[in-house]
């Protein structure tokens, strides 16, 4: 197959994906993974190389599952391999920031109706002391248990009662309402709440339980982020393994490494040290407090949203320090230089209805030196501090240079 044909096939699969929200179940039920295994964000990572934020989250999750009652025991279990670490992306899942998923955690189930595959993601925990930022105390564990005991089952029942929720339509609408679905999910979260409201109200569950879940959703502007990520995972996954395609299908960070995967190169990761995002810090914090970039949320950019849709979200452009409207437009135009096409469903009114740039081409990144722009929250490097700012991060070009070498090697001299 020619590279051009392969890339067109990959791009078609990506933009014609039909992600729909179909359920919320425990990871064990939905993904079939059992035993003492914890998944984390980004490319594969050993305990020794994990940043303190990731390590704190892994210890906390071990206690949440009841595998250990204290951090010392939890550490022993992880170091001895009795509790295993895995990568969300390898099991059809994604996770924000530290991205921890354990078997009993509830996960949203997103089905790609165009290809028949499914993707999974945890429920966004909200702000404050949360596992995804490496907080590790009893309040974190208690919230996780409430998500398992009450929020997950209630949300699952409401989603099932709805039949399913078309996420492509919802995200296309939210894009027109100023979301880029990474740093801003206000509109998408509202649209989801509006869709679920009637089904929540009709549940036979305890009305106070429903009220607690509704309150939890309403208090979190980023509630939809995780679901957007699962939509991205469900949309990109069918592109993995298209021979000869140079299109990027995964961008993810684990707080130590930034990794990409490429459609024509299967499950192989190409990694480089991750950078600290540039942006605005909340009062009292500065770059010296920042954790290096972390999380699977760059899957949002991989499907043509987030930083790639900056022009649709001027409020975010200012929030992440990218300036005003003109800078936002320039950011989207710059990303168009490294993409294979425009998204036919995600359109930006201010750009005369042009689609968002989508389908990052490894070749174009190396050729131009323009690296993908990722809108992201900035985590504190001290575990548990939480979000200390927001900004933009660039994918390291070394990932793309390695992938280019691998693509050329796979293609072989006869094609050169």
């Amino acid at each position, binding site marked *: 197959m*020619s*590279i*051009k*044909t392969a890339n067109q096939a990959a791009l078609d699969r990506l933009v014609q994906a039909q992600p729909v929200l179909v359920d919320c179940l425990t990871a064990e039920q939905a993904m079939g993974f059992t035993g003492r295994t914890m998944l984390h964000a980004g490319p594969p990572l050993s305990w020794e190389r994990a940043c303190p934020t990731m390590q704190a989250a892994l210890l906390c999750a071990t206690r949440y599952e009841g595998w250990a009652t204290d951090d010392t025991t939890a550490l022993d279990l992880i170091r001895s391999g009795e509790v295993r670490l895995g990568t969300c992306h390898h099991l059809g899942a994604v996770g924000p920031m530290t991205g921890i998923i354990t078997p009993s955690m509830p996960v949203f189930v997103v089905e790609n109706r165009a290809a028949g595959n499914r993707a999974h993601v945890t429920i966004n925990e909200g702000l404050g002391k949360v596992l995804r930022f490496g907080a590790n105390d009893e309040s974190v564990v208690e919230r996780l248990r409430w998500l398992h005991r009450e929020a997950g089952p209630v949300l699952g029942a409401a989603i099932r009662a709805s039949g399913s929720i078309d996420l492509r339509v919802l995200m296309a609408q939210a894009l027109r309402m100023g979301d880029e679905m990474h740093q801003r999910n206000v509109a998408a979260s509202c649209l989801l709440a509006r869709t679920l409201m009637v089904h929540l109200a009709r549940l036979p569950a305890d009305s106070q339980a429903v009220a607690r879940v509704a309150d939890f959703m309403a208090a979190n502007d980023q509630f939809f982020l995780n679901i957007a990520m699962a939509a991205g995972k469900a949309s990109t996954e069918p592109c993995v393994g298209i021979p000869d395609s*140079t299109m990027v299908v995964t961008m993810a960070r684990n707080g130590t490494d930034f990794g990409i995967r490429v459609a024509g190169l299967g499950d192989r990761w190409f990694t480089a040290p991750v950078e600290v995002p540039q942006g605005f810090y909340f009062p009292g914090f500065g770059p010296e407090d920042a954790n290096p970039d972390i999380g699977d949320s760059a899957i949002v950019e991989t499907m043509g949203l987030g930083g790639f849709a900056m022009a649709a979200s001027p409020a975010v452009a200012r929030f992440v320090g990218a300036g005003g409207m003109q800078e936002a437009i320039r950011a989207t135009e710059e990303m168009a230089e490294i993409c294979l096409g425009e998204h036919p469903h995600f359109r930006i009114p201010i750009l005369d209805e042009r689609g968002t740039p989508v389908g990052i081409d490894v*070749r174009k990144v*190396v*050729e*131009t*030196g323009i690296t993908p722009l990722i809108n992201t929250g900035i985590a504190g490097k001290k575990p548990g501090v939480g979000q200390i700012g927001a900004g933009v991060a660039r994918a390291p070009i070394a990932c793309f*240079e390695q992938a*280019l*070498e691998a*693509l*050329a090697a796979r*293609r072989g001299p006869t*094609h*050169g």
Partner: protein
Amino acid sequence: MMAGIAALFCQEIRVINLGLEVFAQELQRLGVPVIHVAWSPPAGGDPRKAALLAALADEEEE
């Protein structure tokens, strides 16, 4: 050759500038019509990466 160049500068000059924008800016300052094309050598001029890119270029479909 030199006469041709001399003749060139005796007529109205219209310029397409490739690469370094500072040349275009200076001509603009002098009132010379100029179109600037943002261009840089592929992969920053790295010959090995340029060769890899050439090997992976889109082929013309038959």
